[in-house]
């Protein structure tokens, strides 16, 4: 399990449940590495300000994370973490590699509104 303060998703069925039960969901799928930690940190910082969004992480090396790794939106990705934004059960944005808090905020505002 990732050592973050975010809620953790541990299985594909759990991810499907979260995505189907919540309008706006952001999931960061990574490891505890230097490219991933800043994204988790940004999410933890933004969690309070974006009450309309549910924030989660998922361990990249968990076999169940293939549900994210094999998404068509992540097909060309070659940098951790894979971060996926879901709206009404559908992927509306996905990013690869490190993102700043401002970059995450811009996507949240664009896709989910504040």
């Amino acid at each position: 399990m990732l050592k973050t303060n975010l809620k953790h998703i541990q299985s594909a069925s759990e991810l499907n449940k979260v995505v189907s039960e919540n309008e706006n969901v952001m999931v960061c799928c990574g490891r505890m590495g230097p490219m991933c930690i800043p994204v988790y940190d940004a999410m933890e910082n933004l969690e309070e300000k974006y009450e309309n969004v549910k924030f989660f992480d998922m361990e990249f090396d968990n076999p169940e994370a293939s549900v994210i790794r094999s998404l068509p939106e992540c097909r060309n990705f070659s940098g951790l973490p894979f971060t996926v934004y879901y709206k009404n059960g559908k992927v509306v944005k996905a990013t690869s590699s490190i993102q700043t808090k401002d970059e995450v905020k811009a996507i949240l505002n664009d896709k989910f509104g504040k």
Partner: protein
Amino acid sequence: MINSVNKMKKYDTIIIGAGPAGLTSGIYLARAKQSVLIIDQGTVGGQMIMTHKIANYPGVIDISGYELANNMKAQAKEFGCKIISGSKITGMDISGGIKSIEVDGEDNYSSDAVIIAAGGEPRSLGLESEKRLKGKGISYCATCDGDFFQDQDIVVVGGGNSALEEAVSLTKYARSVTIIHQFDHFQGFPHAIKEAAEHPKIKIILESVVEEFNGDENLNSVIIKNLKDGSLKEINASGAFIFIGYVPRTGPFKGIIALNQKDEIITDIEMRTNISGVFAAGDVISKRYRQVTTAVSDGTIAALSVLDFLNSKKQKIEYSLASEVS
């Protein structure tokens, strides 16, 4: 510009930066019963979290940078530091007796002293294609992303220890690794240069720079320019790892604090800057060696100097009040 001093939350000291220097200053000051605010624009731990394994921090046999950072953070919080991360400084007035700082354009704080420990950030090539292909071939972490490039041809840009060591590490995955470096020699340690130069999978191209990264959805090739004759060459590569050093985060302080030619803050041996009540520590200052241990040392000295400064300030006020009464 800052709106009004009256609306500000006041601290004894504000520390800008939550890397090893800033956190150490915070630990020392808060333990001395000072109120301390630490503000960081990125992640608590600074560049320390970029290090997978730290094996030369005295007293700690082996620890990840993330764990060491988290321990320092917990220690600072335990002593009472308030820490705000992922927040930008959007305004400041640090030249007078009371220093004021605006964060994210909405929150205002003031203090009697400031320690700048903002650290550095990885230097980028500044190409549009570098940004566009980040995570789609362009990477800044071999340990994180190396396994995406199994049996592929990749390039490493840079010529310091990081570039050389990461190039060797990437040979575990890649079919070939080409190091591209702008100078005619490497800046790394002799053993790192030897290991890279003698590795059968590594090819070296010196006196050349990256002109462009090609690819639509993924990186396909890299255009490099020979600095001696200006000729261009295309190298097929599906991955490019960039390790071209760090730049100090001193942008917001230009024109306010004395900087050297490399934009590093000039301090004396007690970490004082040219402005009274403003100190600096860690990778942001002008110095030769940049290690977690040297940052911790700088942070300690800065904190002790701040304590001395605040005590002197307090004594002056008390003396002045006593003189008025008598």
